[in-house]
């Protein structure tokens, strides 16, 4: 076979990649890329441009939704290798392939690439098409940016500034459409702002499986709507607010609350179930105003369930525990409280101490509790929490860190099964000191009368409950949004969260006071950063072997397979 052929084509494209040229730069892009379902389909121009580092403005296209190709914002020009009369590629005098520019533009989001294609995204013609598309979109647009929640993160604003005309030529009367449509319990719609990209329709139909939205009427009267009398209400509706490129769909929860450019965004996790969806906490002046999804293809892609997204208000509740308290508190200082508890633990008869921890605590905190239990010979358990789950994101395990508690040996097998033993031991008088971290145990068989029989009840929590009421020493703790740490989700992925807001009053992160308590009990210094603790935990607990704090990155990590193999015990019950 001809070695010459190899010589004449300098970079033979492998069958899995295609060479295309974007604005003069040739890149090899995969021939196939995953579509919204993850199925491999021919790579489109917009994906090729992305791989070449060129952003093509777009409205209706979204990598995780079926392609609709309706907004025309992504129009580009392109050329294909010119073919001679026999279908043979024509070459320029210098031997390179001759390319024939297509007389018509194409939508980059829905046009597959082909070998040798040249894509032009910056020609004057393309600029003009973008300006024209924007002009059409703005014809009936109300331009109420000053009162629109999307302002500041609005693609219509951004592209208008980047590619649009400075002034409107439209002098006719605008078409008016419904402005405050109560679409469902969590969503408000402004139809005048809608640019009819159908992202919300496709998400709701194809991902949420609830064919609830559509476009009614015709032409410039096109109106996004739900069927009259049917509330737009499925467990995932608020994702449409994120998807909406403009301010048409707004969350009732966040509407008119804050200008988005004032928000501080902190990388965090949702704690409402074991999936551990990645979120950004938007806060301002120490107040949390919203959760938005943070992309993580291994966990939540770019979605959240409505319940998890909205379950943050409790963090700012006015009745948060903010002071040390309790009848055994020698003085209202953390030093006095921890010294008292440490003293008690050091002198406790083995077997007379037990710990109920929460699977809402971080891995690092549960690790400290594990060490504390080892030093005092205490038995431990957690309070399981379950509820309805579905086949998508929502998991039946409503604790964010059940698997962490299991892998650290804190929870019994099955979780919560030791609580009845604790109750019996209190009844018999053998269990005399109980430490409860972040749970109300009274509905779990450890009722108030039983708790009253303890010699010492040490409780840390965030909100008051019947257990905190009875504490001899009460340590006010923190919500995850007020501290830094990691959770292990139900699939074994260890993910980090960071501090978004300050805790109220004298409350302190559990990780801090647990470390101080352990130091007092064990007499050994403990690492004073989440990172240091994580590394000590990874060195000591086989279930975390091989993981590093930095290696968790933004999207977390599962244990490397070799660590998986040396795992001492099966730990697959939290599914």
């Amino acid at each position, binding site marked *: 076979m001809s070695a010459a052929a190899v010589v004449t084509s300098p970079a033979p494209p492998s069958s899995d990649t295609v060479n295309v040229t974007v604005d003069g730069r040739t890149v090899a892009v995969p021939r196939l890329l995953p579509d919204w379902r993850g199925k491999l389909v021919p790579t489109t121009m917009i994906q090729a441009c992305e791989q070449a580092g060129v952003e093509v403005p777009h409205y209706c296209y979204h990598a995780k939704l079926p392609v609709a190709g309706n907004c025309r914002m992504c129009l580009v020009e392109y050329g294909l290798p010119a073919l001679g009369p026999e279908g043979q590629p024509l070459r320029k005098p210098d031997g390179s392939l001759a390319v024939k520019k297509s007389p018509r533009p194409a939508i980059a989001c829905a046009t597959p690439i082909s070998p040798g294609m040249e894509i032009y995204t910056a020609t004057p013609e393309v600029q003009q098409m973008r300006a024209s598309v924007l002009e059409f979109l703005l014809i009936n647009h109300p331009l109420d940016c000053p009162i629109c929640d999307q302002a500041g993160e609005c693609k219509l604003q951004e592209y208008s500034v980047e590619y649009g005309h400075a002034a409107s030529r439209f002098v006719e009367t605008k078409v008016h459409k419904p402005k405050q449509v109560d679409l469902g319990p969590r969503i408000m719609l402004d139809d005048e702002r809608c640019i009819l990209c159908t992202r919300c329709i496709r998400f709701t139909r194809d991902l949420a499986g609830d*064919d*609830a*939205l*559509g*476009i*009614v*009427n*015709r032409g410039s009267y096109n109106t996004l*709507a*739900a*069927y*009259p*009398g*049917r509330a737009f209400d499925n467990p995932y509706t608020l994702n449409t607010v994120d998807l909406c490129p403009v301010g048409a769909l707004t969350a009732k929860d966040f509407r008119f609350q804050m200008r988005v450019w004032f928000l501080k965004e902190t990388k965090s996790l949702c704690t409402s179930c074991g999936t551990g969806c990645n979120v950004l906490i938007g806060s301002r002046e120490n107040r949390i105003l919203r959760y938005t999804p943070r992309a993580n293809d291994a966990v939540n892609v770019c979605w959240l369930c409505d319940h998890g997204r909205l379950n943050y208000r409790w963090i700012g509740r006015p009745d948060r525990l903010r002071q040390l308290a309790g009848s055994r508190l020698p003085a209202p200082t953390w030093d006095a409280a921890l010294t008292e508890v440490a003293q008690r633990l050091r002198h406790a008869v083995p077997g007379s101490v037990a710990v109920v921890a929460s699977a809402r605590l971080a891995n690092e905190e549960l690790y400290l509790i594990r060490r504390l239990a080892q030093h005092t010979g205490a038995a431990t358990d957690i309070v399981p929490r379950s509820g309805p789950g579905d086949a998508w994101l929502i998991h039946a395990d409503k604790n964010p860190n059940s698997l962490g508690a299991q892998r650290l040996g804190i929870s019994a097998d099955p979780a919560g099964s030791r609580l009845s033993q604790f109750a019996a031991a209190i009844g018999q008088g053998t269990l005399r000191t109980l430490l409860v971290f972040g749970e109300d145990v009274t509905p779990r068989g450890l009722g108030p009368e039983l708790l009253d029989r303890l010699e010492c009840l040490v409780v840390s929590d965030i909100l008051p409950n019947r257990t905190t009421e009875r504490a001899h020493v009460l340590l006010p703790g923190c919500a995850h949004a007020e501290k830094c740490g990691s959770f292990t989700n139900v699939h074994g992925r260890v993910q980090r969260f960071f501090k978004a807001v300050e805790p109220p009053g004298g409350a302190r992160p559990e990780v801090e006071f647990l470390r101080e308590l352990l130091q007092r009990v064990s007499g050994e210094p403990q690492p004073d950063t989440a990172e240091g603790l994580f590394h000590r935990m990874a060195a000591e607990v086989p279930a975390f072997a091989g993981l590093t704090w930095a290696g968790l990155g933004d999207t977390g990590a599962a244990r490397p397979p070799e660590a998986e193999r040396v795992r001492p015990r099966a730990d697959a019950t939290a599914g």
Partner: protein
Amino acid sequence: MPVTVPSALEAQIEELIARYPQKRSAAVMVLHALQDHFGCLAPETMEWAAAKLELQPINILELVTFYPMFRQAPVGRFHLKVCRTLSCALAGSHELHRHLCEKLGLDRHAHGPQTTPDGKFTVEFVECLAGCGTAPVLMCNDACHEGVTLAQAEALLAQCEGG
């Protein structure tokens, strides 16, 4: 109030659906059949069609609000559709429309089909009726009238009144 579809009509609709590889493809035909029978497509009728076609009511509402020939409210016994597309507009269809409205006491500026209080006549502008060569064209129910003069229009109204 759920709609009652007579069994003969339901059988006809099932026959229509069977003509298509997918049920949803029959939607427009099914809506025509329902509108022919009920005179218009009320919410209950749309919901019935959606269930029959294994769709959601919003899918049907999209169609009904897209095509002007589907209506959600009843029209008069005589439905006069006056073409206003180019040929007819040039040949005087606006005068024809105004004349009909004036004769029947209807507001010619109002949007959409206008019906006389006695429910006898509805006048409506429509787009091209495909009789451009013989403009102006109007349809009275299913009958097409071409090259309609004002006098002929009046005669048509009189004929309907008598009918």
